[in-house]
């Protein structure tokens, strides 16, 4: 190779590169081929217990942990008629301002009930500042099979401590009794 002209050597590099594996990720077409790592800090999610009651207790520790002041929580008291979470309190207002959030995950560490976790969803760009303040409806996790939309009573016979100990495995028919129509939360947003 040494006797080849310099120019040819240079073109050679270019030529052989054509046979190398292409490094370019074809986002967005092949989005699913390049998923983020499981521990990637993406959009938040407010989780529910297996019966559909919310895990958030409105304690505001996430808001306190937040270094960017991106979270606003306002708690309210559960009542027997309108129960959103086990125990005394639930998060009535839950807002995350994604134009302040730095995805550091301190809120996740602070949460005492694992109500707040992060997903791998990262496609968040939007055209106005207001639309990037996510409300509780936007953040709540999906209704999985066996879940009933809150508000509804706790599983009969279980206490809030049993919920925290993970003893609830799904909703039971008794919980659906005289439930307010169409999940109070969605109606208020």
């Amino acid at each position, binding site marked *: 190779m040494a006797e080849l002209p310099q120019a040819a050597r240079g073109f050679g590099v270019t030529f052989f590169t054509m046979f190398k594996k292409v*490094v*370019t*990720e*074809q*986002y*967005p077409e092949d*989005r699913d081929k*390049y998923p*983020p790592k499981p521990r990637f800090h993406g959009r938040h999610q407010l989780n529910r217990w297996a019966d559909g009651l919310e895990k958030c207790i409105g304690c505001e520790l996430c808001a306190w942990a937040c*270094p*960017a*002041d991106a979270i606003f929580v*306002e708690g309210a008291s559960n009542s027997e008629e309108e129960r959103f979470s086990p125990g005394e309190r639930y998060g*009535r*207002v839950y807002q995350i*301002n*994604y*134009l*302040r*959030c*730095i*995805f*550091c995950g301190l809120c996740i560490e602070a949460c005492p009930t694992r109500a707040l976790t992060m997903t791998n969803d*990262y*496609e*968040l*760009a*939007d*055209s*106005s*500042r207001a639309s*990037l303040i996510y*409300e*509780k409806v936007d953040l709540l996790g999906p209704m999985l099979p066996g879940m009933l939309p809150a508000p509804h009573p706790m599983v009969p016979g279980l206490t809030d401590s049993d919920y925290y100990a993970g003893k609830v495995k799904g909703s039971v028919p008794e919980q659906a009794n005289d439930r307010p129509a169409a999940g109070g939360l969605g109606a*208020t*947003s």
Partner: protein
Amino acid sequence: MGLEESLPSGVLLTTVEKFAGYARKGSLWPATFGLACCAIEMMTTGGARYDLARFGMEVFRASPRQADLMIVAGRVSQKMAPVLRQIYDQMPGPKWVLAMGVCASSGGMFNNYAIVQGVDHVVPVDIYLPGCPPRPEMLIDAILKLHDQIQDTKLGPHRKQEIIALEAEALTAAPTSEMRGLLR
């Protein structure tokens, strides 16, 4: 004009709008303008692995006169704000602004007197991109969402109608101070 009258109403203009939008979105040239850590991700996006060239954005232009997209990548200090505005003013229209990362979008975690609390105080922003910093995919996603906006841009009389409609909407909108939602 002759052709317009003989065609079904609106066809030609719609087509011109679509064509212009297609042409514009297909050759967005960003200005080279990195302010902080977000710029590292922006450079990565231009590199081989993410390859912004796939979307007709070959080069980051060193002169604002040749650019039509300003990616504000990083926090804008109060001292930088007039510079930023000058660069924006030097760009020829039509032009777009992408606020990349939370600092450019709202000040992010730097809620203090040194940082402009959102670059929309200085220039009109077309798309906001959360993240600290956003990963390259997020930037590409934002650029693609901007492409959609550009594709749907109205022209001529349609734009005038749109402006009238938007203004009427804005005049009847609730002021921010009255938007309480669930808050007490």
